């Protein structure tokens, strides 16, 4: 196991505030995630090294466009608002904190879109953010099925999103750490540093939702099915922003 993953596990995954079936369920799912998290770290390191060795600045723009496509303002508004709507009014006493977390995440992720736009602007790749909106590379979501799945959660279960939070937001954290360990470019580092605490927050939300709320087989099932999906061999690749190909 790579040291970056081990450090992440020791600091953020294993410390546990609750006991009970939610925690047990999470730790079982964690075992399933480990090989892919490890692979992600290696991929991100390799991609960062390749980018550095490319001898051109184009990789910065490619990363920023990829990031913008995944978490630009429009994409973020759409994706995170589905979560707000996944709690019915009669469930609000139980799950209002999911809506609060998602309202906050809308704001986090639209800011992340701005960070990618900043790389493009300050790197001299564009003059105005609006130019990005004419570029299909900055607006093609990395995997439609992943985002479409988020959009289906209001029709599935308010906790289903916890699977994406746990599995994918952790990848964002790992990808950021791995990339920062290689790339020395100020623009890229600024973008990654600026969003790393918030990405960790999103991962923690997944961890918390599972530990605190996923207590019965009925509540665990929709989350487990999301893990099943994400862990398929054809599962979504990490975004170009974090060293993936998409």
């Amino acid at each position, binding site marked *: 196991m790579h040291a970056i993953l081990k450090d992440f596990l020791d600091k953020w995954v294993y410390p546990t*505030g609750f*006991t009970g079936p939610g925690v047990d369920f999470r730790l079982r799912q964690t075992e399933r995630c480990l090989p892919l998290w490890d692979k992600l770290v290696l991929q991100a390191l390799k991609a960062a090294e390749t980018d550095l060795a490319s001898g051109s600045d184009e990789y910065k723009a490619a990363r920023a466009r990829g990031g913008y496509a995944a978490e630009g303002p429009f994409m973020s508004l759409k994706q995170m608002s589905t979560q707000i709507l996944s709690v019915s009014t009669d469930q609000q006493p139980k799950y209002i904190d999911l809506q609060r977390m998602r309202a906050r995440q809308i704001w986090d992720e639209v800011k992340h879109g701005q960070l990618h736009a900043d790389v493009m602007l300050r790197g001299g790749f564009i003059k105005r953010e609006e130019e990005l909106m004419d570029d299909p590379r900055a607006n093609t979501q990395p995997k439609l099925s992943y985002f479409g799945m988020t959009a289906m959660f209001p029709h599935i279960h308010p906790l289903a999103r916890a699977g994406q939070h746990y599995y994918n937001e952790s990848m964002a954290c790992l990808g950021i750490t791995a990339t920062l360990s290689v790339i020395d470019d100020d623009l890229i580092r600024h973008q990654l540093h600026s969003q790393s*605490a918030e990405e*960790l927050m999103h991962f*923690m939300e997944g961890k*918390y939702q599972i*530990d605190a709320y996923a207590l019965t087989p009925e509540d665990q099932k929709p989350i487990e099915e999301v893990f099943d999906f994400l862990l398929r061999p054809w599962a979504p690749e990490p975004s170009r922003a974090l060293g993936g190909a998409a």
Partner: protein
Amino acid sequence: MCYVVCREIEINAVVVAPSSQHFLEIDERCTYPGCTVCLMYCPAEGSIVETKTGRSMVPPPQEVWTENKRWPRVP
């Protein structure tokens, strides 16, 4: 995450501060070191500090997440 966690365990020690920045504040209702549960869900390294010792509680030191410090959840 402290505000979400603390409300869920019904201690309610974390409040939105009445200032324009709306920071989160932990008030006197916090029962630390009796309770340490939110520390395990805080993502901001170094952001919660033990007043007595000055040491950072994030990420949580080993001894705060032992079995007897954890909050039991039953369905």
